[in-house]
């Protein structure tokens, strides 16, 4: 197969589309951009793509709650289209606001009779925070984290605290290798992860989740902000790496189709 096409989906308030597209391009994909209005009007256009990415931002201002308006819009207008896209063996990535949308629309963790199994809500300290976090992976299932053990990435969000409806759900996700990304202490240390290493108070330090197939992945940290070695906050002390840690996420997505 040739270079996979990546659809970067924009909506009012999306703001990480350009650099996310650039990251996919750098990883060997071909990035295309579409506005949600355009996709709703002409859902067929998604057939030209192998990867769908919902980039970061504040869709519809994150008014009501982060990602909520776009999630409900997609749920009501695009549920079938996306189900078919996924069933075709294609990939879906949601970063930050994209993750919030995937969770709240039920695409990532489908609702049961009691509703959605989990949500992403306000950070423990009640405000937006931009900082870098250490991450550890469970890459058993998640296509995007193939071969990745640890990452150092920035987060920038106000509503990133993962809250499952109950412990059983959490345990099941864990057993199923769906808790793909967790905040950890520097050096990958397990155990208790205090603030600011767990920057938002996420249950079980969850930073990213994949679906049962490992082909839908949502994460709060921004891999597209650690592509270039000069993105690293300490490159002037520690020297320039060959690539930023986040690059692997895009490379894995693109490589999946080769």
């Amino acid at each position, binding site marked *: 197969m040739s270079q996979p096409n990546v659809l970067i989906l*924009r909506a009012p308030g999306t703001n990480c589309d350009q650099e996310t597209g650039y990251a996919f391009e750098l990883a060997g994909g071909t990035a295309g951009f579409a506005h949600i209005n355009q996709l709703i009007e002409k859902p067929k256009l998604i057939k030209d793509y192998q990867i769908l990415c919902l980039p970061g931002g*504040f869709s519809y*201002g994150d008014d009501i709650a982060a990602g909520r308006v776009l999630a409900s819009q997609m749920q009501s207008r695009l549920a079938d289209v996306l189900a078919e896209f996924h069933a075709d063996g294609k990939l879906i990535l949601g970063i930050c606001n994209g993750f919030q949308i995937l969770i709240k629309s039920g695409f990532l963790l489908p609702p049961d009779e009691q509703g959605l199994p989990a949500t992403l809500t306000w950070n423990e300290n009640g405000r*937006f925070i931009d900082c870098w976090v250490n991450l550890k992976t469970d890459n058993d299932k998640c296509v995007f984290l193939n071969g990745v053990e640890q990452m150092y990435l920035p987060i*920038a969000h106000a509503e990133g605290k993962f809250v499952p409806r109950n412990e059983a759900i959490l345990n099941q996700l864990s057993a199923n290798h769906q808790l793909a990304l967790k905040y950890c202490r520097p050096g990958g240390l397990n155990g208790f992860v205090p603030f600011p290493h767990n920057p938002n108070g996420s249950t079980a330090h969850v930073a990213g989740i994949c679906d049962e197939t490992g082909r839908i992945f949502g994460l709060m940290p*921004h891999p597209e902000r650690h592509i270039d070695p000069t993105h690293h*906050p*300490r490159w*002037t002390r520690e020297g320039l790496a060959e690539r930023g840690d986040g690059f692997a996420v895009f490379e894995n997505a693109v490589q999946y189709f080769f």
Partner: protein
Amino acid sequence: MLFPAGIPLFLKLVDRVTNTIISSKQAESAAVNSQTTLWQIDIFPVEGQPNRLASEVLDNAKDLQINHSMAISAARGFLIQGTLTREQVEELTGNLLVEPVVERCEFALVGSDSLSQAPADLSNLVHVLPLPGVTDPQAESALMAMKQLGYPVEVVRTFKKFWVSDLSTADQQLLNSKILCNDSIEMIVVGPLQLSELHLGQKYEFVKRDIALAGLSDDALMQISQDWTLSLSLIEMHTIRDHFETLGRAPSDIELESIAQTWSEHCSHKTLAGRISYRDENGPRTFSNMLKETIFSATMQIRADLGENDWCVSVFKDNAGIVRFDENYNVAFKVETHNRPSALEPYGGANTGIGGVIRDTLGTGMGAKPICNTDVFCFASPGTPYGELPPGVMHPRRIMKGVVSGVRDYGNRMGIPTVNGAVYFDERYVGNPLVFCGNVGLIPKDKSFKEAQPNDLIVSIGGKTGRDGIHGATFSSAELTESSDVTSGGAVQIGNAITEKMLMDVMLAARDRGLYSAVTDCGAGGYSSAVGEMGEELGAEVWLDKVPLKYEGLSYTEIWISEAQERMVFSVPESDWQEFQALCASESVEATVIGQFKPTGQLVLKFEDQVVGDISMSMLHGGRPPVVREATYQPAPPTPLSKIEEKSTEDWTHDLCKILASPNVASKHWIIRQYDHEVQGGSVIKPLVGAENDGPGDAAVVRPVLQSRRGLAISCGTNPRYGDLDTYHMATSAIDEAIRNCVAVGADPSQIAILDNFCWGHTDRPETLGSLVRAAIGCQDLSVVLQTPFISGKDSLHNEFSYTDGDGNRKTISIPATLLISAMGQVPDIANCVTMDLKKAGNVIFQIGVTGNHFGGSHWAMVNGMTGGQVPTVDAERAKSTFAHLHQAIKSGLIRSCHDMSEGGLAVAVAEMAFAGGLGADISTDEIGIEMPEVEAEAEIDVSYALAAILFSESNTRFLVEVEPQDVHAFESIMGDVDVQRIGSVVTEPKLTIEMAHNLVIESDLTALKQAWLGTLDWN
């Protein structure tokens, strides 16, 4: 505030005496019969989840010392009006409004008893709603989403609901008026909501209004100026009266308003760009346009000196200054102030401040893409006791919190990284906080200029027009008083960042498709300024009835001068209109033709085909009568520094900690971490740097073109305390500081562009205006020598606050003369960037520059309560050479870390480098000499004085650098004639020691220093 005059009653409250509210039962059956009903939805966190709204109130109540045993519960909520059934409302809560897992809700028809069941021990119910007409972005998004989901909804409003424990009447009042509700944007309803409907405004009955000026006395003319909030002077009123007399008719209200907007200080800068007769110790000097003959003239001279290497593109002309970036792009830079609105409603003021400056760069040339923000604030100390505040003033801590969240919520939503900033505290900002918002934009070279063409359509896109911010331009030219918070409600607004983001997205696409010939932002003065400016050389006809409104009832004049946010005006050729409109529609952005540029030289305003205004562009832009203003400057006589007591090592170390903990120097991480400083993916040097990502970087560097290695460094400099001694040296020091910060991270000093923002007190006083003119002369002198051009600027005058104190005396607080210099430097290759944190034990530390006895206005003097002393000055030639040589050293890779020396001098700079790097430093000051003017040298100078100068003097143009041992020789030789002193080395032990002549004078663990620096503004 309940229903200020002139604002339509959006919320029709039922008069509880004469009307009985329809019962819930009746209304429910009405709902079944698809009649309009009004539902209230209260949303609470589920048990185990924090109640953020309640915690915030409790936190603020602590600041105001309200009863500490107060308890509170809070809900957010929506009022929804439509033909909805109970089942539909239930669906809506589940599908859209309530967050599953973490929230629960209660809903019923407004007025239902079920909504007013008090929780245990919380008996007092209070609702807070946005005032009619105030932007409510949450409600707008909710309404849009509900409509898209197919629900029959007409109007949505948000509200907050509080249940409060019993408080004393005084506490309850304080809570209501100072915490729960800001009456410039909100209203409070005590008890259950009793609403029958959410109204949509009232129909406007068109009547053209003329205002007779002929034959009026001076008093009567001034009364008109005041009654209409025109802020026009008597001479200006005379000119207008005479102009219309020659036309043989009376002006209409809209003509008078247009002239007032165009001639306002805010829009025309009539004071600084006017005639000034100035006198200082060097004698008299007369300006016919002060700014043009000082700052602007410096830039012209630099451009002439550079000849074909001139890298300025467009200066002091467009909404932002433009300079060259690389072979494909130019960059635009602008910093604006939004002071008065921020004093009344800090969140909305800062919010619309950042929104406004973003539209400035968007409206520059054919439109620049915003790539980063800078935000600088001046407040009174957040520790000011509540009882010491003048009446009518909001607590500085509350102002600061509001301003920071306003900038955060707008900047972050726009997807523009906020990379630079500063906060300056001084008690004189208590009634007049300053909020500077800046934006840098990237613009293709061939899109840097614009010109509206005859017969182009005038097109407005983005937000709708309401009564928002009417008289903002003329209001911002007036003084604040303790009653401003009651009378100026119309001037305060809330922004909606997403409306602006949507506008920006389609606008940049339209730019690249070439669909318009000119664009400008709608800022102060609204359409009146935007269309007036764009059509200045041409003429325009505007059809005011075509403007899309938020609600009915606006008069033609209100439409014309409204400062509703998130609007921009384009000049679109008729042949491109369809494509332009379709592009906007494809992303749900409203675009409307509101007129046409016509080559008549006249500004014609129509409402429903009737001419309501017809003024010549020449009268509007050239008719303002010149005023000669007096300005004098008498430099304060030099006073010696207070006597320095003999000090021990502990004393000196304690002084260092005090400066590190002083709020101007202390870490601003609480603010910085709330801003997204990495969106757009071009972050190179972040605002916080070092081993733990928390040291104070000198300037941020971004890479605006992802495919390129070329960077931009953004920094600033300001020091109002120096201005108390001499505004000339305050100005040159601010320039030096802004450039130092840029150069320290690797920017090329030969390509730094700077901006001026003057915020001053009442310039009607000759001595106040004189202090400003003197600062401008300082700017001119240094700019020319350094070849650092000013490319744009802005002023905000009359920043004074008047009130009556407890004894009935009228008092006025003027802000200190405040000049902010913002710098934008260019980094040819970002791989050469340097940060300020110490890197490796064994490396050598050098001080660059000459140390003098500059204690005047210094932080060391401040924390010790000392007065007098020399104000820091800049040796221009020396500065130029220092910057150039240091840049060569950085470019050659010889510098491992570099830090600018500013507040707190050597001691603070080296302490910051050490704790940022997590490495100690052993410093000996023996190589440092002190350069003193002769006069002072004759005074009694003892060891303490010399030591204080070495440790804490704030002499300009100095840096500390870290050099690898093997590079020392190369470094010394590349620095040439520049004064460089080897002062010590980096050590592993986390400790700072400074000794002079083998005596230890400062000794501290890094932890203690860092804690002092981190603790002051480490808020929850």
